[in-house]
């Protein structure tokens, strides 16, 4: 087990280095002259060249990469010339609100999708399964912004129950204390995730139901309930751990749409506004953070799966 963790850690570090190379190249291809961005449109070519030289932006690519990696290792994500703030400060300011929205939605979606998926698999091809399938198919096929729009139309514009805009409070505590404003974004985000997770859970449980251990468990006289709780729950939800680790990029994209739609000042909205400003340092920093989160998520998921399932450690 310890050997597996060490091996997995080493590959995670290798992947992270790869990620940093890819983001560096992306930044280089898209914004090759930081001087032009820093000095603004009126700057003369001479001034831009001088700035690039003074800051090492005309060095060979590999030297620039080492410089970039050095900055990253010191936790320096660059500077937003458009907002005149360091990217670190911007991220630190917006991250807690995004964490709250995403975290609450993720936990809710897991808690909801496991029972739904298992129920559907066990009661396969009954009315309940069909109803849940219809619901999850519709939600899954719906772009999250469209679901958000429908909810805004129904609950904000028609019924006036919840505001159409998310909480605008600057502190997380303020956001938590304003649950009315957060219900629509959280419900939208959760519903989209539940659709995907419960479908996965259903097929994973169906796969497991066809396995021989289920037959063995039934043959040795366990009741259906015991088979469900003792064997099926653990084995079927195992792939869900991996799925969650893998779906972090998708979560980030969903978060971006929902924050944009509900005008919720988090990292997604920061990214969206940076797209309009062509603020590449912010864009690349967020992509990098997303990638690091994904690597960590996969690492934790793999270790968790290996801890529970000894068969995985062999590979």
């Amino acid at each position, binding site marked *: 087990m310890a050997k597996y963790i060490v091996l997995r850690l080493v*590959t995670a570090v*290798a*992947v992270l280095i*790869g*990620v940093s190379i*890819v*983001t560096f190249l*992306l930044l280089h291809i*898209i914004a090759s002259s930081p001087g032009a961005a820093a000095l603004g449109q009126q700057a003369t070519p001479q001034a831009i060249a001088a700035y690039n030289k003074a800051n090492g932006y005309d060095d060979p690519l590999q030297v620039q990469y080492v410089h970039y990696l050095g900055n990253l290792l010191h936790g320096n994500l660059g500077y937003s010339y458009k907002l005149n703030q360091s990217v670190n400060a911007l991220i630190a300011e917006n991250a807690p609100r995004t964490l709250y929205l995403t975290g609450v939605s993720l936990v809710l979606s897991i808690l909801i999708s496991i029972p739904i998926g298992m129920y559907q698999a066990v009661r396969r091809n009954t009315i309940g399964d069909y109803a849940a399938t219809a619901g999850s*198919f*519709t939600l*899954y*096929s*719906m*772009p999250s*912004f*469209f679901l958000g*729009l*429908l909810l*805004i*139309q129904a609950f904000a*514009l028609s019924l006036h129950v919840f505001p159409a805009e998310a909480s605008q409070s600057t502190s997380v505590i303020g956001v938590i204390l304003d649950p009315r404003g957060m219900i629509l974004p959280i419900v939208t985000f959760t519903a989209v995730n539940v659709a995907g997770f419960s479908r996965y859970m259903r*097929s994973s449980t*169906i796969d497991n139901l*066809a396995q021989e251990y289920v037959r063995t468990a039934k043959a040795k006289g366990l009741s259906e309930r015991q088979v469900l709780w003792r064997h099926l729950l653990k084995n079927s939800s195992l792939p869900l751990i991996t799925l969650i680790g*893998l779906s*972090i*990029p*998708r979560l*980030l*994209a969903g978060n*971006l*749409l929902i924050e*944009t*739609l509900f005008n919720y000042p988090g990292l997604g909205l920061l*990214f*969206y506004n940076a*797209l309009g400003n*062509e603020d*590449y340092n912010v*864009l*690349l920093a*967020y*992509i990098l953070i*997303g*990638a*690091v989160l*994904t*690597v960590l998520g*996969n690492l934790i998921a793999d270790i968790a799966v290996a801890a529970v399932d000894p068969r995985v450690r062999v590979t």
Partner: protein
Amino acid sequence: MTQRQNSGPLAAAPGAAPSARERAPEALADRDQPHARRGWLLALRTFTESKLGTVGVAILLFFVLFSFAGPLVYHSDQTQGNLLGTDLPPGAGHPLGTDASGYDELGRLMLGGQASLEIGLFAALIAICIGVLYGAIAGMTGGILDGLMMRFVDILLSIPFLLVVLLLATKYRANILSLSLIIGFFSWLVPARLVRGEVLTLRARDFVHASRMLGASDLHTVVRHLIPNAISVVVVNLTFQVADAIIAIAFLGFLGLGLPFPHTDWGDMLANAETYLTDGYWWLVYPVGISLILVVMACNFIGDAWRDALDVRLRER
């Protein structure tokens, strides 16, 4: 069941589209057909027995016809909007009303459907072709090369692809080909992983060992055992890829980074939906939204039905 020989050249062509005749149950009893092909026919029969799968095919066919053949029947001016007739509600001359630039909404829906369907299919095909090759090579070679290839996939999979697509879309002008390439190039990772995983498990299965021990060559093993068994994963994934690509292009269009005006796609048409809803222009929101959902849902239905049809363990007969 009766025996029936497929003697006509059309019926024997492996790439021929499944006609109603081929789907007839008696064709399944044809024992002279190669093993893999009989499996496919059986799968096809299970597929046609699945109601959702059939409904999915019907919906998809409807929207393909609607988008591509529709403009031949229903003529509307999609090059110049009528600025004197913007945001008209559905009525005479405009069954679905007009949009904010005075374009006929029904015609626009067809035009947007073409872009969304084309990009969805192109992107999925690109993703599947790259993914299958990459995954099969990694899975078959194994060892260090496999490790390196899969770490590369890990690197790209870790980078949130929609965010990168957005980033690239701010810099480069979008057209159908560029959007398909961008989406396809970032979507081959999952099929590559699936195919590699499938090849790895299949390689370790007893029937492959048996075939090897009986003296089968690598090529024979790949062609007769690995591909027929791994292809089901690919087929299922292809339909899901189409669905995902259509959602991805809707996402880009919604954020204003889709096809440039006057071209359009369904996401682009929804971009101002929030304003339309507050103004009460429901015809600019619901027809597009529902079309989008139905097409994506149809692809998912088809994928699920294929998955059930091709999974031998779940097959009852």
